[in-house]
């Protein structure tokens, strides 16, 4: 063995190390590839040796070769070997190589799971660190699933170095294994307040990354981030948070309002440009999200624009670039503020830096108005001429078109000008955007009817000069324009000045060199032209002209008949035969023009791009269903050639049955009819569907100006052989100027007249500011035809979402987790898998162990007098109800039965102190959500927040009387509340010295202990942060259902918002015995009003099998859905749980009876409501009112509110001092509004609801809740 090692190290002396390899490669510049291949051979030899040092050296060299582009995946297994070395040095080499060349499909990755797990738990933090770093690069879904729990544990490692890495890598884990997000999130959130700034920064980083993709789920974290923003001094963290706020504000405008001030302060105070820039960016986002108009906002906008101007004017190109970038964001909502800096932006167009020029171009897009469009485009056209490099020029070209066509040609007042701009653009050499120009030409010509005469004339010239465009075939892109030209000339041929000449131009032999699809259009439109010519000439006495035209067609078309392009060939031969036939008729002096032009009759309307997609699927049509019997497999194999088409359009691959019976035919006909009815292309244009887009005070109101044409509309005016002569568009600019001036003068005259006529008139009727936008009327009455959409098009705008986005899977409702963990704890299936437990078969993770145990509320052992009172009340209520529903006899019967049982069975306890103490995490977060509303609606001074927090922490809170604490912090965020809640707890304890209180203490200790161990090394600090998040005493809505010596059941009842008649009952079963519980069956005796939902096919009295078994000491949760009809009354259902208790030697059947109590509260669902909507609701007068008084309530007001929120599913609408309005909604849509007032120990609740019975019951339940504390 020793000999082997010695031998190994001697070998190594002769091996090349990385440096030698690099040196060698540098010395073999001529035959590098050859040298490297010999090196690879050597490496292969080295990898075969046993010595790990040799292997590591080889792997290190491979990493270098990988950088040079060599595939080294063949050595993947050796890399894994080196990774698993016990020496840090080699391990690091291995992980580096793995992170460079492993990926999801590397099969050896699955061998690494255990090794990585071992490294993660290594006592050496650098082993762990290296493993985390490596894993972050090649984590796969499998690795993520298997290691999620280990990594989560590392998030609480004692060393911040590991903590921050573990936090960061969680993001990658979430991406690969989205199920881990919910269970890991609370701890991740905790890390936001980690004492180590690096860890904190990492947590901010991860949450920002998550929130960027699914911002709405993270809205509830806003207060926490706000606190961080006002306290952190780390610019990196600040930037991230500020960016995050930028993503959140669009969802919550109130957040934006809160942000403006601190952000403005930062803008003024910071010296870091990066921070300043991000602040400006977020302020812009805030302003976009707020409806503008408030005076202080215009100040903020001014501040932003002013700061950005400073950036743009800076000599640092980077700042200039970013300034322009941010400016373009302001532009979208506040174009006016940006437009005043037009000079600066135009200046940037001349910058030597292309990135900056492009940004400036973006800005121009939003800065145009009717007034300056022509001017700006003219400037751009100059740039087009000057521009070197096709990319930039193409960019200019697209921008010009974008600018002009934006919002339905809103800014174009003169379409003749625009057409001539487009024609000028066709002269660009080597542009790739021919099709863009073409589609613009088509669009304008089709939609702006008034321009057609002009457009046709221009297009005819283009066709005439086609040789200029196509002369150099290299400039292929631009010939697309001819496609548009030919189509326009054909379609609107009635406007052509000289159709014969154009026809001749379209049939030139040179055309055959054009791309096929263009030729096809040429041929087709030649036919249209031909029809028009015939029509024109038929009136003439001389028929020779018409015959000449036919002859020309017959002479020229054969060229196209021979075309290699199928489309061209087909069209040409078809038309050729047609013309030949026409010629025959002509020779017989038969009038054919009418019939020929009938071929092309009717107008084509533009169809919106998404029209086809939006056609609703007609009722009864199942697109996925087979029309014919699906082919048997053998059949499809026979038809192999068809398989080619299967890929593209599976619909066409249906087997064609040769014999089709009559029925089938009829059915198909019917289907086709239906299809046509919904096909946009078959819709006849109805006049109503064409909107007039230009501002329309009625056509007659538009002063139609006779244009004094100094430039004739006929295009030949520009030398046809050389259209480069002078830019036509310039002449139009001049013309337009003159026209506008004239118009203005005319208007002034009119106005003067008017003023004279009636001086007391109501101001200006024409609202003509001196140069207002609206003043500029278009040159001619332009009606822009809107694109057609199918009737009842589906209003779906989410067409653009990418279904393959990995972040989609991370759209997990964390609020739900935060808000109501007590009600919806992590289901077992959601917990992170742990290896050891999985092996044991127990469905629980160690991390959650304590929590799950704690989550099971203890049974209250004493039967207090209060409870007895409650019982009485219940009985009374039941009696009342039975009176009311006398008609329903059966129901009544059941009711009675219930009543009887109610006396015997244990009363389901609504709330006990103990249950409240148990669940720490959920409540802290639940309070936080309602906190968000508090936080947003109140306006605390941010700087105070911290002071208050520190003061509260410093004070020896436990002894402080609760009342004063409550008074001192009506609007403070939770930090102080924590202390306060503690104090109130203590006070209570002093007051009531009862036995179970002691128990509670114990439990509490236990609970805290659990948290401590969780927190790892930093016990005290960790604990501090946990406490900070706990503003209220913990509460739980789980209440005891039934219990015996084997099993305990606690349950929570929740309405289902999606279905107004469903209630979900979550039951936690806890095995209290030492035996194994199995075959649990849950059954409930249905009432008329409420029924347990059973799987299809089972009878009305069958029980539901609980989908798990319980090993000793384990608890698990199952959910049962009930349908209810009326929700205005509380009710009770009797049920039984049967199960088998299995011991080592025996097994017995056991059962446990229980009573489910559906309170009216459980039909309510926490629904946020804005104060204005709330006010409206109250004003509406549809609501019946009722009120209740609570005496001797000894708790701070916000605790009281939180209790109502939590236990009765209300949300706070508004809170003013000791008065609050609250809202909730039932699953059937009843509104419940509360006005809660407190003075001293008396609380009065005025309530309104559209269902008085429901309201009465809810109030009773609230009263009951408070009578218990």
């Amino acid at each position, binding site marked *: 063995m020793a000999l082997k090692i010695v031998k190994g190290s001697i070998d190594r002396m002769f091996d090349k190390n990385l440096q030698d390899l690099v040196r060698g490669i540098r010395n073999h510049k001529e035959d590098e590839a050859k040298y490297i291949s010999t090196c690879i051979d050597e490496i292969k030899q080295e990898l075969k040796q046993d010595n790990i040092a040799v292997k590591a050296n080889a792997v290190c060299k491979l990493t270098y070769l990988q950088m040079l582009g060599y595939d080294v995946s063949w050595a993947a297994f050796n890399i894994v070997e080196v990774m698993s070395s016990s020496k840090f040095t080699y391990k690091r080499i291995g992980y580096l190589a793995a992170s460079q060349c492993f990926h999801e499909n590397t099969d050896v990755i699955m061998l690494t799971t255990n090794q990585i797990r071992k490294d993660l738990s290594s006592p050496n933090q650098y082993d762990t660190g290296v493993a985390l770093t490596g894993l*972050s690069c090649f984590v796969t879904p499998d690795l993520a699933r298997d290691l999620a729990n280990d990594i989560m544990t590392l998030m609480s490692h004692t060393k911040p170095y590991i903590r921050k890495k573990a936090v960061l890598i969680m993001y990658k884990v979430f991406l690969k294994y989205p199920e881990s997000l919910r269970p890991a999130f609370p701890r991740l959130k905790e890390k936001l307040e980690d004492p180590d700034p*690096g860890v904190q920064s990492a947590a901010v980083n991860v949450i920002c990354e998550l929130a960027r993709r699914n911002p709405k789920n993270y809205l509830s974290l806003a207060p926490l981030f706000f606190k961080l923003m006002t306290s952190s001094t780390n610019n*990196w963290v600040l930037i991230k948070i500020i*960016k995050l706020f930028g993503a959140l504000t669009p969802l919550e405008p109130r957040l934006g309002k809160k942000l403006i001030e601190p952000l403005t302060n930062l803008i003024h105070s910071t010296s870091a440009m990066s921070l300043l820039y991000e602040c400006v960016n977020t302020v812009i986002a805030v302003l976009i999200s707020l409806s503008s108009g408030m005076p202080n906002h215009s100040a903020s906008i001014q501040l932003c624009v002013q700061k950005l101007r400073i950036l743009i004017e800076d000599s640092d*190109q*980077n700042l200039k670039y970013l300034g322009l970038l941010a400016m373009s964001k302001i532009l979208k909502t506040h174009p006016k503020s940006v437009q005043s800096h037009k000079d600066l932006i135009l200046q940037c167009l001349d910058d030597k830096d292309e990135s900056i020029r492009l940004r400036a171009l973006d800005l121009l897009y939003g800065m145009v108005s009717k007034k300056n469009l022509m001017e700006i485009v003219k400037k751009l056209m100059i740039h087009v001429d000057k521009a070197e490099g096709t990319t930039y020029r193409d960019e200019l070209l697209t921008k010009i078109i974008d600018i002009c066509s934006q919002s339905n040609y809103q800014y174009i007042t003169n379409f003749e000008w625009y057409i001539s701009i487009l024609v000028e653009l066709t002269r660009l050499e080597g542009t790739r955007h021919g099709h863009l120009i073409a589609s613009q030409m088509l669009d304008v010509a089709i939609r702006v009817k008034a321009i057609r005469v002009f457009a046709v004339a221009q297009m005819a010239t283009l066709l005439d000069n086609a040789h200029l465009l196509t002369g150099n075939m290299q400039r292929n892109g631009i010939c697309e324009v001819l496609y548009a030209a030919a189509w326009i000339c054909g379609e609107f041929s009635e406007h052509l000045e000289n159709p014969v000449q154009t026809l001749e131009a379209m049939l030139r032999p040179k055309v055959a060199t054009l791309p096929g699809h263009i030729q096809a259009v040429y041929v087709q439109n030649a036919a249209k032209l031909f029809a028009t010519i015939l029509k024109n000439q038929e009136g003439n006495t001389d028929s020779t002209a018409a015959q000449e035209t036919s002859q020309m067609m017959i002479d020229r078309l054969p060229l196209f008949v021979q075309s290699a392009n199928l489309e061209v060939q087909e069209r040409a031969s078809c038309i050729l035969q047609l013309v030949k036939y026409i010629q025959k008729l002509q020779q017989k002096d038969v009038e054919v023009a009418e019939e020929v032009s009938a071929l092309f009759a009717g107008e084509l309307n533009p169809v919106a791009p998404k029209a086809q997609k939006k056609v609703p699927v007609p009722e009864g049509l199942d697109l996925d269903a087979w029309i014919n019997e699906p082919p048997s497999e053998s059949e499809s194999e026979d038809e192999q050639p068809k398989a080619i088409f299967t890929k593209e359009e599976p619909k066409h691959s249906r087997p064609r049955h040769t014999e089709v019976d009559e029925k089938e035919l009829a059915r198909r006909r019917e289907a086709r009819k239906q299809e046509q009815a919904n096909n946009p292309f078959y819709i006849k244009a109805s006049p109503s569907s064409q909107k007039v887009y230009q501002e329309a005070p009625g056509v007659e109101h538009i002063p139609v100006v006779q244009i004094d044409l100094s430039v004739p509309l006929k295009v030949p005016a520009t030398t046809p052989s050389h259209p480069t002569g002078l830019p036509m568009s310039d002449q139009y600019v001049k013309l337009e100027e003159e026209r506008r001036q004239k118009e203005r003068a005319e208007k002034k005259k009119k106005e003067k007249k008017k003023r004279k006529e009636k001086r007391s008139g109501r101001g200006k009727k024409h609202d003509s500011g001196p140069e207002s936008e609206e003043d500029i009327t278009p040159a001619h009455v332009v009606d822009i035809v809107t694109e057609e959409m199918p009737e009842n098009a589906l209003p779906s705008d989410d067409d653009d979402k990418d279904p393959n986005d990995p972040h989609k899977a991370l759209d997990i409702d964390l609020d739900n987790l935060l808000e109501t963990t007590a009600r919806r704890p992590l289901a077992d299936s959601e917990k992170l898998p742990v290896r050891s437990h999985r092996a044991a078969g127990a469905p629980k993770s160690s991390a959650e162990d304590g929590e799950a145990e704690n989550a099971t509320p203890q049974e209250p052992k004493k039967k207090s007098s209060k409870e007895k009172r409650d019982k009485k009340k219940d009985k009374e209520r039941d009696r009342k109800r039975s009176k009311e529903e006398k008609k329903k006899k059966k129901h009544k019967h059941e009711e009675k039965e219930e009543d009887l049982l109610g006396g015997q069975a244990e009363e389901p306890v609504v709330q006990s102190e103990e249950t409240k103490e148990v669940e720490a995490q959920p409540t802290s977060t639940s309070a936080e959500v309602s906190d968000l509303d508090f936080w947003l609606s109140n306006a605390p001074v941010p700087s105070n927040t911290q002071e208050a927090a520190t003061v509260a922490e410093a004070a020896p809170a436990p002894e402080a009387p609760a009342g004063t604490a409550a008074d001192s912090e009506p609007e403070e965020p939770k930090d102080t509340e924590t202390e306060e809640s503690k104090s109130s707890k203590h006070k209570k304890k002093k007051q009531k010295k009862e036995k179970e209180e002691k128990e509670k203490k114990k439990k509490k200790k236990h609970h805290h202990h659990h948290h401590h161990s969780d927190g790892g090394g930093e016990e005290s600090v960790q604990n501090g942060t946990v406490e900070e998040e706990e503003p209220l005493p913990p509460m739980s809505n789980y209440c005891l259902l039934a219990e015996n010596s084997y099993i305990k059941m606690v349950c929570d009842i929740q309405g289902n918002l999606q279905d107004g008649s469903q209630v979900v009952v979550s039951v936690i079963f806890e095995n209290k015995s030492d035996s194994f519980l199995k075959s649990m069956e849950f059954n409930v005796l249905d009432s008329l009003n409420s029924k347990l939902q059973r799987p299809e096919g089972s009878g009305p009295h069958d029980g539901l099998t609980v989908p798990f078994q319980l090993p000793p000491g384990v608890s698990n949760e199952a959910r049962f859905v009930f349908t209810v009809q009326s929700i205005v009354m509380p009710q009770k259902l009797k049920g039984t749980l049967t199960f088998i208790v299995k011991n080592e030697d025996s097994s017995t059947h056991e059962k446990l009876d229980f009573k489910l109590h559906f309170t009216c509260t459980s039909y309510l669902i926490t629904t946020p409501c804005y104060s204005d909507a709330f006010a409206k609701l109250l004003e509406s007068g549809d609501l019946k009112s009722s009120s209740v008084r609570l005496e001797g309530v000894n708790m701070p007001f916000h605790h009281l509110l939180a209790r109502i929120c939590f236990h009765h599913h209300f949300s706070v609408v508004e809170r003013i001092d000791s008065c609050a309005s609250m809202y909730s909604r039932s699953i059937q849509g009843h509104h419940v509004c509360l006005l809660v007032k407190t003075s001293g120990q008396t609380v009065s609740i005025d309530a309104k609801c559209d269902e008085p019975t429901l309201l009465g019951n809810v109030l009773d339940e609230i009263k009951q809740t408070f009578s218990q504390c």
Partner: protein
Amino acid sequence: MIKAILIFNNHGKPRLIRFYQYFAEDMQQQIIRETFHLVSKRDDNVCNFLEGGSLIGGSDYKLIYRHYATLYFVFCVDSSESELGILDLIQVFVETLDKCFENVCELDLIFHMDKVHYILQEVVMGGMVLETNMNEIVAQVEVQNRMEKSELCNQN
């Protein structure tokens, strides 16, 4: 997120490549070539941001780079990163290299690619910024180097 970090010299020779998303080796080389082509034709006095690398990412991604003597340091990042922040980060990274190698030059990167990787790993992890404090980075790197040394001594 940072999608890739590339270091190459004035001739486009890669000195360090670190992709945080998988690309096959030939694709990686193509990206390096394209990036070099885009970056190298820019003057030193134009801005350090570049859009339009077609191979990585798409419209959401930007190239942010700095040019030091013979080397280009290029970061490809998406819109969640602050542009100026990344520029600072490049500076931090280069200064860290300078500290660790004592007057770093291209040759250091050529012969010690692995070490450069180890330093980078302390700055960026899995495409997210891990640490921006130079002293902290240098400290961690040094501890690990010491561990390596002691391990090698023990062996010999």
